[in-house]
């Protein structure tokens, strides 16, 4: 198959599926899920073939979307290691989530709508992965936002879900503003938006000249693009939407809000790394925001009791890790962690979905317990995922996490002692909260009626868990990572490597032991830190900001509008017209004689004007 038809199929097939399902929603009620799942399997097949495609540095043109003068923005595809590997991850996890959803959403009334939105998401995500220019990426960036909105708000009758969907959408707008500003700055500097052309320009062209003389412009452009990534990848302070997005169906959380869409920010940063890497300021800001997000989210995760919320904060924390790695000059390390994280985090979410499904939609871990006997497959896969996330040696997460720690280690080019300490602390906390989750949910005795009656999930839900368990263990090894086109970082040698390894191991052990000791046989949370449980009060801060800032501002704007728009331009002319009208109304006396008199007066005046009035002197 030609690469262009391959990528075209990958892009357009889910679009067709989404359109067909959404347009013939009622007609396809009972087959929509099969259509969507079938399409996802075909896409995965295409992605597998695509792994062997040749590099196309100048991109493949599918469709000339915009052409104004010398400016072009096409629907075109970039083919390189990064896009091949990412497409594999997206379609692989997408396919598994589709299959898993067959079981999870079996009894949902709006199953067709769900699968239609899932197809739309696959279309949009593939578009981001394959985009060879920033405009196309931005279009699909917005499209994933829309499909994410649709899927978070799938149970829109629940006010929390509707609010969460709205929150996710609005928060992302802030990021998109930055993304667009970044694109516009780059377009303004060079006149094109193609990533390949921008990179060429940065190596020897306009951007190169600008970087040498006006570095702040490049910094500004990089920060704009990073703001977009902050929105999509939920970096502090725009992270608030991701935990709330857990109101969506769990398979959606696994696919969109853990493995793929939220990673799009990191993916994009790595795509435009030549811009970010060109300015130290940009890199530092990105690294710090990533580090702060990682640590803060990990602290918040330690005090949550909702199983999905814990995983959500964990996702935030891991995304912070990746972003920090990119900021510290390790795009490969960031992408590699994205790649391993996608597998085990998707599996953890799907596992939590199985638990939730078994416990009749109970999400509080303190009402679970003792599940390891009732759900052995779920437990073992969940345990593997937890180990991978904690960074237990020889698991996938271990390799990628160590890579990031190595980048942060001061010995490395951009390394930073404080950030390294924060990263190690985060790793410790990760081990701590994941152990806490497993101990509380799966061990001890059942603390709720639902947990008591729990039983293993159906096969379509177990199967994706088992399939994902393999890459969760093995993805870090070269024999799997290389054929899957992951960006494997170079191994760091030297004295630092041993320190990094030691810190990493100590972090896992400390976290694990502390959690085991604290939570074994605990019936309620023995630790109680309101600051962490309440997410550092950031939501409250925003609410206050909106309440006191926005309301005041809105009051001012309303007042101005009332005076100038409503008053001077609308009400005043209206009042004049109506006043004139009431005055003229008096002339309509209704008296025939008065009318005749005026008529006669008119005759006299006309005669005067026609005969006697003269403009000549």
């Amino acid at each position: 198959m030609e690469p262009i038809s391959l990528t075209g199929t990958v892009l357009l097939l889910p679009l067709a599926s989404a359109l067909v399902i959404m347009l013939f929603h009622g007609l396809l009620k009972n087959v929509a899920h099969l259509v969507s799942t079938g399409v996802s399997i075909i896409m995965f097949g295409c992605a597998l073939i695509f792994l062997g495609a040749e590099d196309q540095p100048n991109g493949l043109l599918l469709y000339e979307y915009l052409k104004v003068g010398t400016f072009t923005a096409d629907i075109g595809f970039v083919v390189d290691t990064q896009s091949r590997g990412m497409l594999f991850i997206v379609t692989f996890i997408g396919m598994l989530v589709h299959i898993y959803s067959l079981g999870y959403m079996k009894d949902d009334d709006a199953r067709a709508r769900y699968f239609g939105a899932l197809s739309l998401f696959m279309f949009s995500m593939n578009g981001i992965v394959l985009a060879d220019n920033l405009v196309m990426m931005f279009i699909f960036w917005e499209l994933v936002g829309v499909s994410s909105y649709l899927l978070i708000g799938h149970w829109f009758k629940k006010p929390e879900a509707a609010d969460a969907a709205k929150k996710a959408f609005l928060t992302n707008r802030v990021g998109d503003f930055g993304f667009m500003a970044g694109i516009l700055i780059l377009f303004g500097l060079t006149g094109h938006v193609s990533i390949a052309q921008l990179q060429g320009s940065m190596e020897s062209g306009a951007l190169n000249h600008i970087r040498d003389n006006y570095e702040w412009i490049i910094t500004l452009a990089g920060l704009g693009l990073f703001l977009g990534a902050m929105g999509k990848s939920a970096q502090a302070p725009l992270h608030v939407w991701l935990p709330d997005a857990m109101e969506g169906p769990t398979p959606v959380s696994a696919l969109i809000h853990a493995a793929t869409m939220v990673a799009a920010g990191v993916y994009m940063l790595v795509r435009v790394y030549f811009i970010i890497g060109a300015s130290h300021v940009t890199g530092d800001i990105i690294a710090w925001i990533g580090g702060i997000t990682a640590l803060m989210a990990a602290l918040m995760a330690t005090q949550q009791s909702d199983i999905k919320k814990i995983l959500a904060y964990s996702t935030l924390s891991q995304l912070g890790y990746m972003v920090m790695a990119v900021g510290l000059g390790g795009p490969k390390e960031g992408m590699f962690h994205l790649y391993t994280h996608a597998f085990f985090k998707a599996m953890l979410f799907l596992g939590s979905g199985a638990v939730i499904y078994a416990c009749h939609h109970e999400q509080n871990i303190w009402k679970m317990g003792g599940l390891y006997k009732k759900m052995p497959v779920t437990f073992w896969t969940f345990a593997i995922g937890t180990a991978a996330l904690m960074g237990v040696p020889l698991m996938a997460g271990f390799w990628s996490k160590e890579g990031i720690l190595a980048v942060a280690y001061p010995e490395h080019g951009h390394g930073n002692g404080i950030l390294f300490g924060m990263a190690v602390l985060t790793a410790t906390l990760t081990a701590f909260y994941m152990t806490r989750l497993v101990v509380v949910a799966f061990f001890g005795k059942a603390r709720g009626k639902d947990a008591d009656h729990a039983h293993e999930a159906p096969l379509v839900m177990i199967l994706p868990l088992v399939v994902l368990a393999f890459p969760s263990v093995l993805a870090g090894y070269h024999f799997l990572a290389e054929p899957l086109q992951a960006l494997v970082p170079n191994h760091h040698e030297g004295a630092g490597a041993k320190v990094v390894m030691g810190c990493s191991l100590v972090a896992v052990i400390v976290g694990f032991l502390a959690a085991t000791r604290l939570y074994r046989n605990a019936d309620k949370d023995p630790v109680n830190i309101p600051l962490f449980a309440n997410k550092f009060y950031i939501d409250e801060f925003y609410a206050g900001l909106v309440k006191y800032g926005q309301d005041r501002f809105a009051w001012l704007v309303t007042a101005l509008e009332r005076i100038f728009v409503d008053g001077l331009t609308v009400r005043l002319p209206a009042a004049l017209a109506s006043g004139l009208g009431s005055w003229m109304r008096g002339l309509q006396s209704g008296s025939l004689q008065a009318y005749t008199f005026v008529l006669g007066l008119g005759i006299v005046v006309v005669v005067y004007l026609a005969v006697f009035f003269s403009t000549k002197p």
Partner: protein
Amino acid sequence: MVTLNHYLLVSGLLFSIGLVGVVVRRNILTIYMCLEMMLSAANLTLVAFSRFRLVEGLPDYNAQALVFFTITVAAAEVAVGLAIIVALFRARQSVDITAVEKLKG
């Protein structure tokens, strides 16, 4: 001697009398008669000019044709107008125009 001006003056006076009648009187029938008077005054002007402007040695018969049309229209107008007056009288039991003030704004 009787000149064109004499005829025109008589016509103007008759028209003025009609105008005063329309403005002063309230009886719709009288107003109607005054209107007819004004129309006839106009006819007198037309006929006078017709006689004093010779075409091929004869009075201008175009003007007289116009007078003929005016009289026809006036007759039709009287017929319709009187029917309206009858209808109005049925509704108001009066031919006084002060009884009809629906157009008052």
